């Protein structure tokens, strides 16, 4: 008898259930646990107080990223430079001490492999298809780009995973986001995911795991898939994933933590079996017409506040929901924008190219292609390019991209979370705008009073050149 057709999510879930309680709560095994400096110290401290150890240090990898300054970390003589902020230094020191004390592999702040945890995981082959991956960071959803079930957890859950290698969870509902057709020229994975969030809303995915389906994703690079899945949480979904295929296998093969030889072949066989079965049903289905997606930017303080670059700032009056009208009015006040303003007339003083959403090699190439032979506008006060990892940085430098950025007036930085979240020195001043390739335009996200416009790396580069939000398709190739 044939078993009931299952989705990719259901297959991964079923393979990881240790036990199911009568009330439906499941004890779920975690294959990979990524740890960073900000959400782990309290978890390690609690383990220590309870006399508990880490059950599977071999399935755990630690790397600092959130509060590291992105300025040089070593002096010319090779010695490590101290972190000026005492609290950040203490947090980093805690991770540096906790990792070896609990037997966990640690990529330190000056290692060539250091970077943003969601860039490092796939890049090191630590994040694999069909696995359950967690990290104390909501953008863990990114790893769904390699076909993993990956989601962010709180610090109590970090402690739970460290102690037991499991989590107590209830199964999620399933949502299919099916993208039909092809993206137009100049339209990137970032534009697509911003558009999708605009359609489903920031709470549209709450309680769901999203599977992104359609030819667009089959043709998309792994970097692009990571960008899309990364922002699933901005649509309320704790996880989003894309079926693993040859593109993913080719990307992962030979990476340091990936299986090798015969083990690799066995792994690939299993990964191929994970695709959603014909006839499997999703609890919810959303269809997106790829041809309708334009280069997209945000105008408000929620990632659902997006519009095509050719559009205008909306009026609160156009929203049906009273609470949303009030929220939009507040947003526009915070953003200093008047309804009806064409997005292309919005001037920006700051440009941030980086974050776990858009700091991979493909992102830097896309921005550099726009910047080549050009300079940032005089009105752009601060422009930084922050590679997602040391390895991305090295590759970009080998390709000469760093020179393109610096010739264009950008600062070329060390890897880290940087200006995405205002907990390290990279911040946007109050009242100023930033064209940012990051993932959140929340009030105060890039610094108190900072105004964020989310967009793709190519669009951020275009804004740098003109000094205002700009349809990158209008800039002729140089």
């Amino acid at each position, binding site marked *: 008898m044939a078993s009931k057709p299952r989705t990719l999510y259901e297959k991964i879930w079923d393979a990881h259930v*240790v*036990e199911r309680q009568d*009330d439906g*709560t499941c*004890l779920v*095994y975690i294959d*990979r646990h990524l740890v960073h400096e*900000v*959400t782990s*110290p*309290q978890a390690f*401290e609690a383990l220590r107080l*309870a006399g508990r150890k880490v059950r599977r*240090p071999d*399935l755990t*990898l630690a790397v600092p990223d959130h*509060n590291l300054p992105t300025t040089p970390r070593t002096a010319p003589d090779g010695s490590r430079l101290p972190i000026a902020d005492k609290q950040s230094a203490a947090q980093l020191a*805690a991770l540096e001490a906790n990792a070896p004390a609990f037997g966990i*592999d640690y990529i330190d702040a000056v290692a060539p492999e250091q970077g943003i945890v969601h860039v490092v995981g796939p890049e*090191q*082959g630590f994040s694999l298809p069909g*696995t359950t991956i967690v990290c*104390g*960071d*909501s953008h863990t959803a990114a790893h769904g780009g390699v076909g993993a079930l990956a989601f*962010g*957890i*709180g*610090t*109590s*859950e970090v*402690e*739970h995973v460290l*102690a*037991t290698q*499991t989590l107590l969870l209830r199964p999620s509902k399933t949502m299919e986001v099916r993208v039909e057709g092809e993206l137009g020229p100049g339209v990137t994975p970032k534009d697509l995911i911003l558009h999708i969030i605009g359609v489903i809303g920031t*709470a549209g995915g*709450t309680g769901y795991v999203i599977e992104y389906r359609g030819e667009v994703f089959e043709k998309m690079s792994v970097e692009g898939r990571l960008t899309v899945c990364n922002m699933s*949480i901005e649509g*309320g979904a*704790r996880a989003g994933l894309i079926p693993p295929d040859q593109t993913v296998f080719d990307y992962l093969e030979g990476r*340091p*933590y990936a299986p*090798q030889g015969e*083990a*690799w072949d066995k*792994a690939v066989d299993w990964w191929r079996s994970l695709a959603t079965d014909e006839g499997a049903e999703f609890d919810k289905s959303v269809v997106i017409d790829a041809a309708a997606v334009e280069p997209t930017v945000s105008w408000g303080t*929620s990632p659902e506040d997006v519009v095509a670059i050719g559009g205008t700032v909306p009026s609160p009056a156009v929203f049906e929901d009273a*609470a*949303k009208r009030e*929220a939009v009015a507040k947003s526009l006040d915070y953003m200093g924008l008047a309804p009806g303003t064409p997005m292309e007339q919005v001037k920006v003083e700051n440009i941030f190219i980086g974050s776990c959403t858009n700091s991979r090699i493909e992102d830097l190439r896309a921005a550099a292609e726009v910047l080549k032979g050009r300079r940032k506008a005089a009105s752009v006060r601060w422009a930084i390019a922050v590679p997602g990892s040391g390895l991305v940085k090295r590759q970009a430098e080998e390709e000469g991209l760093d020179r393109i950025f610096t010739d264009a007036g950008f600062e070329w930085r060390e890897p880290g979370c940087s200006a995405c*979240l*205002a*907990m390290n020195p990279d911040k946007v001043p109050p009242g100023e705008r930033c064209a940012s390739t990051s993932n*959140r335009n*929340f*009030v*105060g*996200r890039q610094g*108190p009073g900072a105004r964020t416009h989310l967009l793709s790396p190519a669009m951020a580069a275009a804004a740098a050149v003109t000094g205002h939000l700009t349809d990158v398709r209008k800039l002729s190739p140089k």
Partner: protein
Amino acid sequence: MKQVSTISGRAIPLGLKNVDTDVIIPAHWLKTVSREGLGKGAFETIRQAPGNPFDVEDFAGAPILIAGDNFGCGSSREHAAWAMLDMGLTAVIAPSFSDIFSGNAFKNGILAVELPQEQVDRLLEVAKDHPITIDLENQVVTTPFQDRFPFEVDPFRKHCLLNGLDEIGLTLERDAAIETHERVRADSLPWLDTPTRNRREHA
């Protein structure tokens, strides 16, 4: 975890929707290795505005917050729950919560009570002048008037909260089942167990 059963007192009528965890506790407060003292930074940007509900004298020490849709969206930072606890909040009522926040709230003994928007609107009105009671055992929110709003709660979470159970302690008791799972996994998908060793061989 400490036991939770009934929470009664004044409720801060915030009402905003999409209150993200960056708003609950901005990132610059996250540079701590402790769970304590975060109340000072809770809702920092909202509290900078004159006349904000947090600084109304009647609501000092209020145990309940009433908010709009999608409360706690965004970052997974459990500091949001710690900051709320530190300022004395032990319950939030809203039409919906983000998945990660509701988990973090539960783990810290904060009740996240979901009620339909019209009931939340009624409570926002009542809360201006009157206390509110949340009865977890009977799963109902009441006011000094005739209001009785039943709510749903995950049975496992309710059991843990009412009895003050430590989830990690409970899971550690399932050690035999976890070991069995690990053995099966090692047989069928052995490559899952080798990441660190792979790296060392590679290096």
